[in-house]
């Protein structure tokens, strides 16, 4: 396989990129100055080398703690629970949330063998038990599995004496947070209700 084909194949593995687009991207890079391609490859290498899960919340991080956990201006008494690290971005883009996050790493899914132990729920309960947290906002997806996960979290966290809220209706049923626009998320956040 030629170098061109190899790169095209790598591009085609990325989400949203078909074979034709992949080949267009390769030819585009070859027409541009060499430095551009090298900068792109350097950026990819840097991300691969440096990004890891935040030790506290599971968000993408460049050092032990992510930018949110290491920001002293964030309200650490307000904890927002999301399924995946990219959901943190969806909520951050609203600009309306000043608290901190906890990334579960998925949602309860018995058919996939995903129970509470497979998610970072034990770690979440540690945080709720030891940090001074006054409210947990459950922002799992609006799917059946996301909803069941929210109910499970409510059942386990409320006995610890901490308020548990859920994003307001308005997130379309069945949709992933990732695909919901910022205004809708901001409204759902503002209108969150105690479970």
């Amino acid at each position, binding site marked *: 396989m030629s170098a061109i084909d190899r790169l095209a194949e790598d591009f085609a593995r990325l*989400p*949203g990129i078909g074979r034709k687009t992949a080949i267009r991207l390769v030819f585009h890079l070859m027409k541009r100055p060499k430095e551009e391609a090298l900068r792109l490859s350097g950026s990819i290498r840097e991300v691969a080398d440096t990004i890891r899960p935040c030790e506290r919340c599971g968000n993408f991080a460049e050092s032990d703690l992510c930018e949110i956990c290491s920001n002293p201006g964030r309200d650490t008494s307000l904890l927002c629970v999301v399924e995946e690290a990219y959901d943190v971005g969806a909520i951050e883009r609203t600009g309306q949330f000043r608290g901190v996050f906890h990334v579960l790493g998925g949602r*309860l899914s*018995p*058919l*996939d*063998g995903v*129970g*509470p*132990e497979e998610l970072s729920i034990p770690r979440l309960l540690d945080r709720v038990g030891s940090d001074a947290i006054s409210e947990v906002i459950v922002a799992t997806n609006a*799917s*059946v*599995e996301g*909803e*069941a996960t929210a*109910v*499970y979290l409510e*059942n386990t966290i409320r006995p610890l004496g901490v308020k548990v809220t859920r994003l307001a209706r308005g*997130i*379309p*049923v*069945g*949709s*992933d947070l990732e*695909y*919901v*626009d910022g205004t809708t998320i901001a409204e759902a956040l503002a209108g969150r209700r105690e479970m």
Partner: protein
Amino acid sequence: MGVITTSAILLRSFNYSETSKVLRFFTRDHGVMAVMAKGSRKSHGRYGGSIETFVTGELTAYVRPTRDLQTLKDFSATRPRRPLAAHVLRFAGASILAEVALEHSGEGPAPEIFERLNHGLDAVEVVDEPELLATLLREVWGLVADLGYHPVLDPCVQCGRALEAGEMGRFDFGGGGVRCAQCAEDGPGPRLGPNARRQLRQMLDADPSVQVSHPRAHLRLLENFVTYHLAGSRPLRTFKFLADLLGQDDSGTLERM
């Protein structure tokens, strides 16, 4: 390529790409069917909120008989099952029904299994909480029997002698049912008392009055039977999920029943 329309229950879905999902349905007319749903991941996608686990609806798909993966044209919900998500034990029970139904391998019409599954999901959704485990056991055993794995409770699977009313037997998974007291001496499997045997028979007869005295022990028996006969010894994931939720504090056996 043809177009088919059939009643169907969505049992599983996973993300295939940025925009698409693969859905696994139990259909009335074609058994288990895998369908690609393009554009279904984005919010306000073409199928609205009907693409949700455990929903019953009308499925229309483009079908090529030689393919394992068909293409979704439309799915409209006739029976949403959102309340299953509001109660984790019900959610776990519905997942067991789904996992067992997905073991069905026939490709022809399967109306009895479809109705049993549909009924089972309804029952697990609405039954009063204290009755939940007994109801789940009854519905799963019914489904297992409809899939063609009805255990033999009488006569003895080893010697063929009819069991007496109070006789202590043993459940022999490999033999597909109960052994009498003599054959149980050195046989494999858990001991099974006369009450447990009677309850098992009631569950298989879908008797709504069944009182299950040790539901967790019955659940283990059911899990072992399903694992042995339907899943080719591969452990089922949903049983473990439910058992973990219920905790490990029940050491009851089916022997003294």
